[in-house]
């Protein structure tokens, strides 16, 4: 006998069967009837030429603004709702194919541009010699290996905190976002944040145009450098980053100086300082020589002047000498060995000694006369 269900029982049994048979489905199709209700609930259909499937979910699982006509790949769980019927509860939705990816990125670009997230004024300089770096990339990828290798060749002494994440696929946006937020929540944050991966197809790189990733990069308190190994289309994550690099290796080159160049600069500095010090010594030596010459000349002048003074004094002394007067014909009169300069104490018959230039004579006073 056929089983008879109540509507509630049928919904429960069908959901149980769906959960068992299709816990997760991936459906790709054209987006239609896309709408967001109360800024939270998202409804849309995926259709092709023959069928259309309803989807339901929240804005938190959207990769950015979407519009009808885009080709998207949706991951979700099929479910029969008690009141609203069948739908797939989506947990991930990604535009697929170059055209749709580009169109979705354009939509997001316009929105973020209005918010000013690409403005040059927002760009911060990265530290010239970071001591710590937060690296977000896929472990084992050529991108991460290249970045670490070139970084090591150029500069040392850094702590690199490597967060291994998916950089493509369904989980990539959430993992990239979580890693960026993790570094930004640390009490001591790294000085620079590098997000890097190699090149790939538009589908491979879609996570870097995902609104959640792009906003996380824009909101990062740590200066960011995003390097995706492609040159043709720049991702939105690169556009909101403080700095972008063309490849992972280029990111390392931009981020740190080259130690070889630095060593050359140090050698030049050493040479310049040595030459500078030598020039100071030379200048001091010249200064000393000049001072010596000055002192020597000054002393010479001083001696010469003193000698002149001495000579003058000698001449003066000689001129004042009694002998000079005697030579001019004067006589020096002495009484009992004492010089007589007056007639006051002389009397007749005193014995006197008279000195002339060429000899002495002893005389007796005959008479004393005073002048006047």
């Amino acid at each position, binding site marked *: 006998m056929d089983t008879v269900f109540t509507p509630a029982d049928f919904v429960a049994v069908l959901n149980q069967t769906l959960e068992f048979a299709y816990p997760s489905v991936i459906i790709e199709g054209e987006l239609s009837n896309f709408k967001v209700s109360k800024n939270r609930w998202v409804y849309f259909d995926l259709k092709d030429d023959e069928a259309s499937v309803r989807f339901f979910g929240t804005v938190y699982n959207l990769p950015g603004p979407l519009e009808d006509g885009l080709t998207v790949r949706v991951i979700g769980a099929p479910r029969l709702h008690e009141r609203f019927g069948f739908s797939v509860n989506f947990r991930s939705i990604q535009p697929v194919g170059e055209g749709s990816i580009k169109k979705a990125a354009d939509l997001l670009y316009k929105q973020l541009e209005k918010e000013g997230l690409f403005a040059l004024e927002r760009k911060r300089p990265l530290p010239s010699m970071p001591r710590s770096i937060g690296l977000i990339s896929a472990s084992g990828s050529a991108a991460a290996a290249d970045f670490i290798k070139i970084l090591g060749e150029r500069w*040392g002494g850094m*702590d*690199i905190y490597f967060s*291994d994440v998916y950089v493509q696929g369904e989980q990539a946006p959430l993992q990239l976002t979580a890693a960026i937020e993790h570094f930004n929540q640390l009490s001591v944050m790294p000085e620079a944040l590098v997000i890097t991966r190699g090149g790939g197809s538009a589908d491979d790189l879609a996570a870097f145009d995902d609104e959640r990733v792009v906003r996380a990069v824009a909101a990062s308190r740590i200066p960011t450098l995003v390097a995706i190994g492609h040159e043709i289309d720049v991702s939105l994550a690169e556009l909101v980053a403080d700095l972008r690099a063309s490849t992972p290796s280029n990111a390392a080159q931009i981020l740190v100086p080259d130690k070889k160049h630095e*060593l050359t600069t140090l050698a030049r*500095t050493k040479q310049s300082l040595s030459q500078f010090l030598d020039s100071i010594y030379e200048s001091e030596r010249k200064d000393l020589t000049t001072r010596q010459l000055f002192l020597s000349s000054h002393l010479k002048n001083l001696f010469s002047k003193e000698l002149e003074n001495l000579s003058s004094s000698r001449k003066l002394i000689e001129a004042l000498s009694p002998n000079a007067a005697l030579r001019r014909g004067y006589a020096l009169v002495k009484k009992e060995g004492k010089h007589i300069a007056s007639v006051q104490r002389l009397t007749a018959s005193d014995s006197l000694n008279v000195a002339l230039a060429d000899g002495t004579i002893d005389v007796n006073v005959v008479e004393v006369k005073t002048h006047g």
Partner: protein
Amino acid sequence: MAKAAKNYKRMSEELAGIIAWFESGEIDLDAASAKYEEALKLLGQMETYLKTAENKIHKISIGSKD
């Protein structure tokens, strides 16, 4: 995460200070000799840093990749 030890940037700034002192023009020979010795010491430390310092990779886990 950042080390408290004297780092290259700080040494580089100290060296720049000494060079600026030399370029200031008011040079005393004794002070210049002392500053030169200081600069040589710094240059040596910086060279050693550049020749020997290596990067350390710390893998951190934020949820599971699988």
